[in-house]
């Protein structure tokens, strides 16, 4: 079966150049970057190269890039690092949007258990945080505001520059999780006006297990891990050299392709979305059409269990996703769609399609050709109760 991958917000396949370069580094640059000798210097050099490439993707200075173990780790280092650094000042209030990734939401919950106050900024059906809503959420002792750049489930882009200004006016540190926007849309940390920004390599054709956290120079950050002095003391532990190099290659490729790929994938996404909404009865788009990352669409299928639709599509060779999966891999109602105020049934009947580099016009045709019949079958059968006696 020819399998079609439409779940690029979950992860992307590493590009050929990434795999080649990582393979070469794994076999040839085995040195420990902290070592003084030749081997250490070579490893250090390839990391520095990658640091420049990742910095370029973010419009940042290489010295401000900390390599991490991925998006979740970046979010944790940022929030915990700032909160713990500010704890002695008596600022014990954290703010995030209600549509953040679990990496942010559950970190806030951890601080709530330690006696911090936390506020989640609501969103409306557009899935976009209104600046006024953040103003309302701010308090005298707000230490940090964390609002994602692009949402992973619906793709909407938040007005980060405006939100960061509000945080700054309240003397709070601003962090943004840019895991879903990095490599898809241009990012300039200075234009955004944020203090911290985390990204993850495997969302833009790099390897899993590596990410980066950009921190504004001079920002006080308590290290999350205690250990050696790697990454300027902000992330102790011997560097994942091959992973970091792979991330650098992926960042460079993303920069080079962003404009053309954004247009191409955006057109595919729009055609997929328009066709589904036109040809499958009882469908509706979740969240605002714009501003949005170009590869993502999230659609409700009335009278359909998202769980069944996802499985039925997988059995036909089409890989899609719903919002979030729980520990066993079953589906839970999406907290993002819930936060947007959608009725319960729409939080359980929505499917996310997230496109990527390998997708073509033919792929879209195939989904559009297949989907109406699959949805109809599910609707007719899952709603027929089997005769039963108690």
């Amino acid at each position, binding site marked *: 079966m020819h399998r079609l991958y439409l779940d690029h917000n979950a992860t992307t396949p590493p590009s050929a150049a990434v795999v080649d370069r990582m393979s070469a580094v794994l076999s040839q640059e085995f040195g420990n970057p902290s070592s003084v000798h030749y081997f250490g210097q070579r490893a250090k050099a390839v990391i520095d190269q990658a640091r420049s490439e990742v910095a370029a993707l973010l419009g940042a200075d290489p010295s401000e890039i900390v390599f991490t173990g991925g998006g979740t780790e970046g979010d944790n280092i940022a929030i915990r690092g700032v909160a713990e650094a500010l704890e002695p000042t008596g600022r014990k209030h954290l703010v995030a949007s209600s549509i953040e990734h679990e990496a942010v939401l559950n970190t806030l919950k951890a601080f709530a258990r330690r006696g911090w106050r936390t506020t989640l900024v609501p969103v409306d059906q557009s899935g976009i945080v209104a600046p006024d809503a953040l103003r309302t959420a701010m308090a005298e002792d707000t230490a940090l505001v964390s609002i994602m750049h692009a949402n992973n489930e619906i793709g909407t882009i938040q007005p980060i520059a405006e939100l960061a200004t509000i945080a700054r006016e309240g003397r709070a540190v601003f962090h943004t999780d840019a895991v879903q926007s990095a490599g898809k849309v241009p990012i300039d940390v200075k234009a955004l006006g944020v203090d911290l920004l985390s990204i993850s390599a495997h969302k833009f054709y790099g390897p899993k297990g590596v990410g980066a956290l950009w921190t504004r120079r001079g920002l006080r950050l308590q290290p999350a891990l205690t250990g050696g002095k790697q990454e300027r003391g902000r992330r102790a532990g011997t560097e994942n050299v091959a992973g970091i190099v792979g991330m650098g290659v992926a960042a460079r490729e993303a920069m080079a392709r962003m404009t053309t790929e954004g247009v191409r994938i955006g057109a595919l996404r729009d055609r997929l979305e328009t066709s589904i909404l036109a040809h499958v009865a009882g469908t509706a788009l979740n969240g605002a059409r714009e501003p949005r990352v170009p590869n993502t669409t999230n659609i409700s299928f009335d009278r359909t269990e998202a769980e*069944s639709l996802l499985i039925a599509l997988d059995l036909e060779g089409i890989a899609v996703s719903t919002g979030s999966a*729980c520990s*066993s891999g079953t589906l839970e109602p999406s907290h993002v769609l819930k936060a947007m105020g959608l009725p319960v049934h729409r939080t359980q009947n929505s499917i996310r399609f997230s496109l990527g580099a390998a997708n073509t016009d033919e792929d879209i045709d195939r989904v559009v050709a297949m989907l109406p019949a699959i949805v109809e079958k599910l609707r007719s059968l899952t709603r*027929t109760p089997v*005769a039963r006696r*108690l």
Partner: protein
Amino acid sequence: MSGGVDSSVAAALLSGQGHEVIGLSMQLYDQSGQQSFGSCCTLDDLHDARRVASVLGFPHYILNFERQFAETVIANFVTEYASGRTPIPCAHCNSDLKFSTLLARAQGLGADYVATGHYARVEQAPGGRWLLRRSQDGEKDQSYFLFSLTQDQLARAVFPVGSLTKPAVRAEARRIGLTVADKADSQEICFVPDGDYATFVASRAPSVRAGAVVDTQGQRLATHSGVHRFTVGQRKGLGVSASAPLYVLKIDADSGDVTVGPRTALDRSSLTVSGMNWISREAPGDWASASAQIRHRHQPATGRVRAIDGARAEFEFDAPQSAVTPGQAAVFYDGDIVIGGGWIE
């Protein structure tokens, strides 16, 4: 696929016969933070099921049935105990979840049948009627828990291990190299792994009736904290001391009275059932000879059965039976063929 050896081998057998197999597991309660909640369908069990599917080379999915399980099986379990009856959640799970919601989902995915690891056999009689028969392994037979399956449900049910014995199933699992070959059997009631039904029910039915333990003359012998702590036929934990052993004879959930008496007072010569499901035949208007099994581990007793109306039936034992327990099932057999069954009133 529960992750146990029976459903794993059932899947392996079908896969080996060339059928297109889709593995489905049901997540029945919240797994977050639960390391050892149940004896069945825990996170580890679901992972076992996934590994089996991966080894056998077919897709596997976990369906989230937490809400449905709570609304059908657990709600009924709590209500029954709080009403002074002794429920069988497995039977409800089979007819109201596995061969209802799960079957409908499977059909939506294009499946023609739902196979499980139950020890029972389904056959089609010459007239087209679907028959439910005891399994090859009499010790493991689970037909008692499947009595409430309708003809429509039986027509879609496949029990691949029903014609095998448990040792043969384990041997087959070892032959294929399944890691679950020597996994322990699951307990009867998966959502109360410690067996403490009373605490489980009390936490979900806080208004459950406390009352008195009384003798057959209505004389008060002791007080108790809830009718859900008792089952007809129970001897231990009555909180009464007497010269001869006392047994629970009757539970009145409205007054809270639990009547106790000597073992001989437990004998019944007949019973009636509601929710009667006829399988091997239409409802007999006249008496038909049969044997009745009145709980899971009960040697069927001979007698005769007849329909009272569309939903009820009565059974007369040739010799009186002890502890006919309301809420349990009475399943009527003709040899190893299930005639039908219902819930003891």
